[in-house]
């Protein structure tokens, strides 16, 4: 190997090594910065999504709903609710009978076909006979009617007798067989 070649190689090899190393480190640094930016953007997206979810969850939290998921203690919970409401209104529930029907078809629909929206939903009818003062009975009916869970009242019989005032009303609640995805 001649002196000139050795000298040339003496410059060339370090320059190539330094250049290659520098280029590799630079490219990796650029890649790292790029991925870091992506990470930061992803974090911002997650924060925005969490905020959006929180807003959606907090929004309409007091909105009325029609159905609840079917559970083993659904009826127990409802009866307990009735007793609590009656006690607070000062009325006496003298008679109660239940019947379950398919609520998937709108009774008002002309074609009689089940509504896809209501498919599988059960309508649990409870015929309740209560006795008490008119004011108490009215309060009781209003409590049932304005419950956050929709209770459809129908088939009302209000009568005044010598022993007081009695009300018989059919209360229909709706139970969904499928589990609700969100409360």
């Amino acid at each position: 190997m001649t002196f000139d070649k050795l000298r040339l190689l003496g410059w060339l090899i370090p320059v190539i090594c330094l250049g290659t190393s520098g280029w590799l480190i630079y490219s990796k640094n650029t890649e790292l910065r790029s991925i870091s930016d992506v990470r930061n953007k992803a974090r911002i997206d997650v924060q925005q999504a969490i905020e959006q979810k929180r807003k959606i969850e907090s929004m309409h939290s007091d909105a009325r709903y029609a159905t609840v998921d079917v559970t083993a203690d659904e009826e127990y919970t409802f009866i307990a609710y009735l007793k609590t409401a009656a006690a607070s209104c000062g009325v006496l529930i003298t008679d109660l009978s239940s019947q379950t029907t398919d609520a998937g078809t709108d009774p008002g629909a002309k074609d009689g076909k089940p509504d896809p929206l209501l498919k599988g939903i059960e309508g649990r009818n409870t015929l309740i006979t209560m006795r008490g003062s008119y004011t108490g009975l009215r309060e009781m009916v209003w409590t049932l009617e304005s419950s956050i869970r929709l209770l459809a009242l129908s088939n009302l019989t209000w009568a005044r007798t010598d022993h007081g005032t009695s009300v018989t009303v059919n209360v229909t609640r709706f139970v969904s067989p499928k589990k609700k995805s969100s409360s």
Partner: protein
Amino acid sequence: MPAGAIECGVVTRPGLVSEALRSLLNSMEVSSHRVAIGVSGDAVSQRTITVPPAPDEDLASIVRGEVEDHQLVKTAFGAYAYIRLSSECQPAMSHTWTQDNEIWIDSRTSKFKQDLVTVFAIEQETISAIRDAIEGAGLTVEIIEPTQYAMYRSIQLATGLNGTFFGVMVGPSNTDIAVVCKGQLVAYRRIDTGSRAITGDYAPTSEYSYAGIRMSAYADEPHEVVNPDSRLNSLSLEEFSTEVHRTIYYYQREYPDLSQCEQVVLAVDDSRLENLASELSSRLGLTVERARPFGTSLDNPVDQSPFASRAEVVCSAAYGLAMDGIQISKVPRIDLFTEERNAVQNVESKRNFKGSIIVSLLAAAIGIAGVSLYSGQIAQLQSEVKQISTEATQIRSQIDLAVQSRQQQADQYKAFRKRGLPITQILDSIADSVGPGAGLTSVNVSPDRTVVITGEADTETSMLSMMNALNSCPLLQNVKIDWFKQMPQEKAPGITFEFRGTTVTSAQVIMPGEQAQ
């Protein structure tokens, strides 16, 4: 120069030489750091050898072989340099006089033409001592040339570029004779009589060996002075003039172009040889003139001052060395420092190359480490990004499901809302419609929205008034009298009645909480 610093042309104490050079150059305020060094014939061996005709690029290897064969360089790292003698002036007969064996070689019958090469050789210790001395003075060796060869350059510059002459260069222990024909060096030989012997100041007292070369040591006392006026040793002078005459006579006889050449130019290194030219002229019967480089240099005006005259006696070698780089000179360079310089450069180059490799390895290691570290961080970030993206996707999916569920709940609520009746509002409307003289007995609201109201009234007017009030209620429609009849006589006077009408579904009544649906 301090005593003992240089002995017999060899630097024996480089430190003293360095100090002396540094002091000299400082006093002269010389700024250049490049120096050309002349080495006297004591330390430089010279020989003319015959070689086969070959181009310049092949001549080097041929000469190398000849040098090794003749053992011109005796030590391991000695150096040599050579010049190809010109073949422009051809001899009349193909005689060749070489110093290979100091005999005449009759090549008249030779079938092949031979080239002549003069080789100068120097031992490594001599060069190293010079280099140590020069570099110790902070200088850089530009070239190391034989002193007598530098004198030859000085003579040629003084004589003219195309001159034909015999150049006689007297060194301390020997004398070189250059035969120049039309500016071309055609022969170069050495005779073993130098200025020391001619001046007679020093007589050889012993011989010793330095670096493998046999050297002569001289006593301080004059050996024999025959001519007191010139202070020259007649015996040595006679021997010297005889050798010069033999050489000139030979070349005049053998080379037709030189037969008429009677110009002999003398260059000496000792001021005591100022009259050697006249002595030699009288002995040879030829015109012998002393080289006057200062007076005829192309770059310098004629200077006839006594100082110049004295200086040019001893400065012809220095002048020749200084003129080494001039392109107009036809005297090629003889650089005995090439091997040493190349060796040093080679060592430095290898050292630098090793350094370069170390730097390269460090750079590669840094690069690998950097890439590895960055790759680890990048992989970690990529994993984090993937995890965050998955989380974001899940949250957005949950949002979509929540929105969908909300919408479904709203739609279901809207649908089921129709199935209920606004019982409280109906009761309130009916109660508000009961006027004076009227009362309610029962209210029945059937699932088909039929409302049946029974009651009692004092008069028909009160009953009709109540019916009108019921009809003005927005929740009740088409309220009509089913029947009415007088109550039995045993009871209080009055009538009983029954109204029948229709009502609306709960969907037409806004309930609390529905505003937000």
